[in-house]
């Protein structure tokens, strides 16, 4: 079953700049899809058009059977609850504690008053602690987020997304600001979420080797167009096509994978 269908998606900035041009693809439930491409190719714009942080110029985004592009404000809020988002810069409220930031994920389900004063049910709190425990942040629960390391912050970001009970996770460069160790931890968690919890993941990545290692499927974007959509066993030529570069210009290690 398809969780997400993107049809003829086009995004123009102004009248000239074409950020996305006529994208078509669909994503199955539980699939782990990685989107790769140069900086400025349109990866972030694509992700943000799906949950309408950016409004598409043309085309349709069908998520869980609903056309996102046609929703009014209230219906959009309801639909966004089912889509978790993870950011390169974590986008936490740094002055608040870990548990407060995680519970922010429930705000989409709250009335205005309850959300403003931050009153959450016991069930929500229990679930928050469970997720925090799963991500190994139990010792940090009451720490302010500005005291955490980058990897810990990103795990808080993941927890905030998970407590939404999402069907889809949109991850925008989740490891671009992290060191290799923290990157591995984060990618392992995302892979687990997809495999064990059956949540679909759409992950923008800069690191081609990471994308090839973790993803079920790769979508390659170049200048706003999909130039590759298929399994993660790309040849060097295909990678160069995605990045619009000449052979030998990129530092990519796909050797081990292709030879085996």
């Amino acid at each position: 079953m398809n969780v997400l269908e993107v049809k003829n998606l086009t995004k123009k900035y102004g009248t000239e700049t074409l950020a996305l041009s006529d994208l078509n693809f669909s994503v199955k439930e539980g699939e782990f899809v990685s989107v790769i491409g140069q900086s400025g190719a349109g990866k972030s714009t694509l992700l943000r058009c799906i949950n309408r942080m950016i409004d598409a110029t043309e085309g349709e985004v069908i998520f869980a059977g609903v056309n996102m592009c046609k929703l009014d404000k209230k219906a959009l809020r309801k639909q966004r609850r089912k889509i978790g988002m993870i950011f390169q810069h974590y986008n936490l409220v740094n002055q608040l504690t870990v548990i407060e930031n995680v519970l922010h994920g429930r705000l989409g389900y709250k009335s205005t008053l309850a959300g403003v004063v931050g009153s959450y049910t016991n069930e929500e709190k229990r679930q928050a602690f469970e997720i925090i425990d799963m991500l190994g942040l139990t010792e940090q629960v009451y720490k302010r987020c500005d005291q955490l390391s980058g990897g810990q912050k990103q795990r808080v970001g993941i927890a905030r997304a998970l407590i939404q009970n999402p069907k889809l996770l949109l991850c925008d460069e989740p490891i671009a600001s992290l060191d290799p160790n923290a990157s591995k931890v984060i990618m392992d968690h995302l892979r687990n979420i997809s495999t064990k919890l059956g949540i679909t993941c759409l992950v923008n990545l800069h690191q081609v080797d990471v994308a090839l290692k973790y993803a079920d499927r790769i979508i390659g974007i170049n200048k706003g167009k999909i130039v590759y959509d298929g399994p993660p066993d790309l040849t060097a030529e295909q990678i160069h096509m995605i990045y619009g570069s000449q052979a030998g210009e990129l530092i990519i290690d796909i050797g081990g994978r292709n030879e085996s």
Partner: protein
Amino acid sequence: MRVEALIKRRRNNLIFFAVLLAATLVSIIITEFEVTKAFTSIPRAIGWAVKSFYPNANSLEKIPKILVKLRETVLLSIASTTVAAIFAAFLALFGSKTTQINSFLAAVSRGIASIFRNIPVAAWALILLLSFGQSSLTGYFALFFATWGFLTRAFMETIDEVGSEGVEALKAVGASYFHIIFQAVIPSSLPQMISWVLFMVETNIRSSTLVGILTGTGIGFIFNLYYKSFQYNAASLVVVFIIISVLVIEYISNYVRRVIL
């Protein structure tokens, strides 16, 4: 090429200094400013200050009177700043790019802020003198309007600088406008905002001295009174108290800043 660029930059520098020099000379000639006289009078001014502008035993009797006025001035600047801060917070929410409701309201609130901010406190005092006369209310409103304008601008920038990331995340979660304001914008920008308010309290104590001269209230009035009636010792004592109070406020606000930031 590189040598040419260097020569060009040097030439530009020379032109800049030549223009600066010409502007200075022209202004000296227009205003009939006597340079030598100005510099030779500095030692005389210092000499006068040493001889007459210092607190003496007699002037110490004036301390209770000065303290009453000083209290008035300090309270006035704190009251005007804090009330202005509340109004500024609302205007900043409408004007900030991150939290604006629509671009029309944002433009209006930014316009209001920049008008209020760009009219100096002294001008506000003179304008308001016409409607409120010589009373502390005039001083209060003069400080209030100028502070409102400044703090709105400062708050807007604070919200845009520290709040935007959290706001984006909460939007993606499906949170409503008020959720976002209370759960992301306020927690992340409050420390910075308090710091701006403290800064404005300090600034307003300084400017309320001037406002007091114009409106005939507070520490400014008493300074003006002593100065014009040739009681230089008492006037100098007033200056000492102003300096002490500004230093104390500065110390307190630095301490608060250290704790909250």
